[in-house]
């Protein structure tokens, strides 16, 4: 029983660490987008390296948590839900890393007047991701507070959609850009917005899992 208690404590810490890592990944993503828009390539590349490290850490933590939960047969009633939840949260940091890499590889040309929209879109998507991480923490420790955070996820996801639409409108109304550039910029708006969409998907799952836990 003492060994199990130790394992339980260790897994609890790992879950916290995992959520911290994903949350840091989102912050790094926001910083990366900002540095790219400011054309600060040195700091942007530092952020790329940081998010790759964090994504690797998140993956290894997730695998370790999965192994621990199965190895010690912990939370048999909720194990499947918890693993699904952690895996879908992993999509957040994966998406953030992939988007930053696309900035690095494709180097989209973003005219100055549009940078404000991209920053706003990135920040709102990050807020949606942050809210779902807080809701996940509540799922483990304070079930009744889960819905207090989930409504924020849905709010930020809708906001991100609205900002994305405004951004795309501004892109396609621009006289300075070629159609190919416009398509390229739309593509990046969609990628950043995808982070909020992933957050919404996690929130949908979390809603069901929270209801299942109260039964």
């Amino acid at each position, binding site marked *: 029983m003492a060994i199990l*208690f130790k394992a339980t404590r260790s897994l*609890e810490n790992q879950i916290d660490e995992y959520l911290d890592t994903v949350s840091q990944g989102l912050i790094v993503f926001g910083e990366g987008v900002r540095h790219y828009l400011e054309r600060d390539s040195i700091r942007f590349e530092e952020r790329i390296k940081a998010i790759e490290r964090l994504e690797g850490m998140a993956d290894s933590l997730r695998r370790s948590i999965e192994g621990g939960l199965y190895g010690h047969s912990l939370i*048999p*009633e909720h194990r499947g839900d918890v693993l699904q939840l952690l895996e879908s949260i992993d999509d957040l940091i994966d998406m953030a890393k992939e988007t930053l890499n696309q900035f690095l590889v494709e180097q989209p040309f973003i005219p100055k007047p549009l940078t404000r929209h991209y920053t706003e879109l990135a920040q709102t998507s990050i807020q949606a991701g942050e809210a779902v991480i807080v809701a996940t923490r509540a799922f*483990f420790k304070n079930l009744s507070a889960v819905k207090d955070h989930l409504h924020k996820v849905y709010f930020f996801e809708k906001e991100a959609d609205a900002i994305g639409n405004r951004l795309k409108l501004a892109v396609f109304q621009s006289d300075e850009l070629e159609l190919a550039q416009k398509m390229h910029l739309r593509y990046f708006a969609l990628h950043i917005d995808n982070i909020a969409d992933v957050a919404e998907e996690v929130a949908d799952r979390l809603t069901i899992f929270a209801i299942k836990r109260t039964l």
Partner: protein
Amino acid sequence: MTLFLFSSGLFLGWSLGANDAANIFGTAVGSRMLRFRTAAIIASFFVVVGAVVGGSGTAETLGRLGAVNALAGSFTVALAAGVTVFWMTRASLPVSTSQAIVGAIIGWNLFSGSSTDGGTLGQIVATWVICPIIAGLLAAGLYLGLRFVLVRAHVHLLQIDWWTRAGLVLVGAFGAYSLGANNIANVVGVFVPAEPFGDLELFGLITVSGTQIVFFLGGLAIAVGIFTYSKKVMDTVGTSLIRISPEAALVVVLAQAIVLFVFASEGLRQWLIASGLPPIPLVPVSSSQAVVGAVIGIALVRGARELDWKMLGGIALGWVATPLIAALISLTALFIVQNVFDQTVCRPQAPLTVSVQ
């Protein structure tokens, strides 16, 4: 010969261990919260302790109902109860060893011409009816209390899991003790008046009474039943029959254990009498019905719209049908054992003497 005649009690014990241990550890093992081996060791140890330490109270009540005073009679009565349980289980009818043994004893009373103490019988039947109700009320209260604490304490899901496991071990041990104390009378209680074993002195230090030997062997039979056959039942209980959370399972086992303990504890009875409160009758009750009562109690608290009337009807049917069937089988078996196998199934009872000072 004594051991052979005792075998029907051992068989009853085995079947009790095989079936009723699942009421204590079924959900924990079925849902993989506990390993079967751990559960079986805890259950076996505490069942034997409960039988030897606390089994006398309920055995005395059964003795008041009918003192089966010949070993072949005890064998037949226990066999009749065992056959009833086996046959009703095969026919998928709800059955309890407690009710079967009471019916079988009444069968012996009828066969031997002994009178059945109406007061004791009434007390036993009333306890059967009350037992699932008390278990339901207890489970509802405990469940609400646990939910209140869990909502406010902000304990991590993994911590809840650990505490639930620890709780299932502790409460399971208590449940096994209570099962041994309460239900040992069903298994070997009918052998006590026949006194198949004499007192035994161990190393010149401890004297073990013949009754304690009877209870110990009965407890061992239950333990063998737990080890050899209860895993199957536990897997069924844990995975298909009752789908409740491990926390709710903890409450169910605790409620059941308390009910079985209350109706078996001589110490509690003495304390109530000393405090001027009405004593609780020490009666063997059905652990399965206590579990069903507890599950219904939790379901009602959680807002179940309708009760499973079929299940409740089954319990009520068990109160009437099981003793009747057991009494009939017992009567028939006693007739066969006495007239075909030429065994003494009852001895003439000494007339009641009243001393006049």
